[in-house]
């Protein structure tokens, strides 16, 4: 069914159907902004980047292929926009004023983005593995991870809400990520080479 919806939306989009665009926007805008924000750590910049992504989606709608995942395409566009945003940032005055720590972090984030190739990464499978793995985590660990990653609470807020120490929150997130690191080994392999789309 999802495939059918995807195919139908793709065809509609390609034909310039405004409602299809609206549905895609409302479905993916939030997740994409959150995704971009992981790398840009700037909410407003992330929103601008994803708005550009949707403008491009509309401009390039003639290239939409109904057999290709719309989601992968959107993530791929977002990734490219984030990379180009960081590149511009690096040569801007605004950036020069930031601390060295932030500059290094942005640099690393840009490099991490280069490692993400949505042509080869199966997003749905990764999401499924994460969901399934969450089920197997100890109660507290799962609770902390969901509040952090799904509800987007800060570690401090989670500690307050659950009445546990900040250290315990961090410990639980670390624990979860350690497990994901192993489970996702085959899906996000370290060190595969990327074709840059720039």
């Amino acid at each position: 069914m999802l495939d059918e919806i995807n195919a139908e939306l793709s065809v509609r989009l390609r034909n310039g159907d405004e409602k299809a665009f609206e549905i895609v926007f409302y479905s993916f805008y939030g997740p994409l902004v959150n995704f971009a924000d992981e790398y840009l750590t700037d909410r407003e910049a992330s929103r601008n980047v994803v708005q550009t992504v949707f403008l491009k989606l509309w401009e390039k709608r003639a290239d939409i292929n109904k057999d290709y995942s719309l989601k992968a395409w959107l993530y791929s566009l977002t990734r490219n926009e984030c990379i180009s945003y960081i590149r511009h940032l690096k040569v801007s005055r605004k950036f020069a004023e930031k601390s060295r720590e932030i500059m290094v972090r942005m640099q690393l984030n840009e490099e991490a983005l280069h490692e993400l190739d949505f042509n080869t990464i199966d997003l749905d499978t990764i999401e499924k593995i994460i969901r399934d793995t969450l089920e197997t985590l100890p109660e507290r660990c799962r609770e902390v991870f969901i509040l952090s990653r799904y509800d987007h609470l800060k570690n401090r807020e989670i500690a307050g809400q659950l009445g546990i120490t900040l250290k315990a929150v961090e410990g639980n997130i670390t624990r979860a990520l350690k497990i994901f690191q192993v489970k996702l080994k085959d899906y996000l392999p370290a060190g595969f080479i990327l074709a840059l789309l720039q």
Partner: protein
Amino acid sequence: MEFEQLIEYITGDPDEATTTAVLEWISASEENRKEFYRLKNIYALSQSGSRVTELRSDYFKVKEKLDFGSGESPVRWLKELLKYAAVIAFTLLSVYFIGQFRKNEIPREYVSAYHQLTVPLGQISEFIFADGTRVWLNSGTTLRFPDNPQDSLREVFLEGEAYFDVSKIKKRPFIVHTGPMDIRVLGTAFNVQCYPDMDKSETTLVEGSLEIQNHKQELLAMLKPGEQLKFSRSTLSRSLSRVDTAPYKAWRDGKLIFRDKSLGEIAGSLERWYNVRIIFSDEKIKNYRFTGTILKHKPFDQILQAIRLTTPIRYQIRVHAESSNEVTLYSRE
């Protein structure tokens, strides 16, 4: 460097010592560097949800910049599309956009246009109505509702199993029509199982209150939380009992809980969940009783193995390309 520090660097506000340690580690080798990228990406992709408060205003920002022509009416094609709507288990794209529309009070026609949701065998889906009522549909279930709901009445037609969490609206009862009877509620949570191929239907009330009527609108029963009404199509007999409601809620999360149920009773659920046909070569084995929890994502083999280990029952699987696979259960004795 400790793994904890690496995570702290990726997820939070690291202190200077942590930052230094992590950056040193990253630059120590190419493998370390790649591992950092991978963790960072895993972390970024593991987030989900759509917490963007500016969703609607941002949409209009984008829309302003686009040259939308006059497209065809949205209602017709969405209606066509949703006719086939069988939303894949737990993957909530369609729920997602309908949910979004509801939250943002966007076109009502989306929500009132379609009329049938079908969930194939082996899958579960979740759906949100315009009034905020949520419904979870179990495998092999069809839910229909009118194109243009009346103002005074909310009604749906159910074949299969569904869990309803109905939003309370004064003077607008919510009615679930099932084969043998109608369930009438205001605001409440309950589970209904009424597969057309089963004689007995079960209505289990979790919270609130609920009335069950026959088609002549005569009152058959009023349920209190924790009560279950069983109704037989063939004999029209009914029985009311107190039950533990946990199993009737758990299937929504992909858990099938059995409390002292016979294999005969369980078979139907397993058939629908795993899209298999279960054949008993011996009526006697229907009487083995089970207590336990089955997780939906576990392969069916594993469940058969568990049955094999705890009982003298043996099985044989016949794989069909065109239809459901067949599992024949027989006794070793």
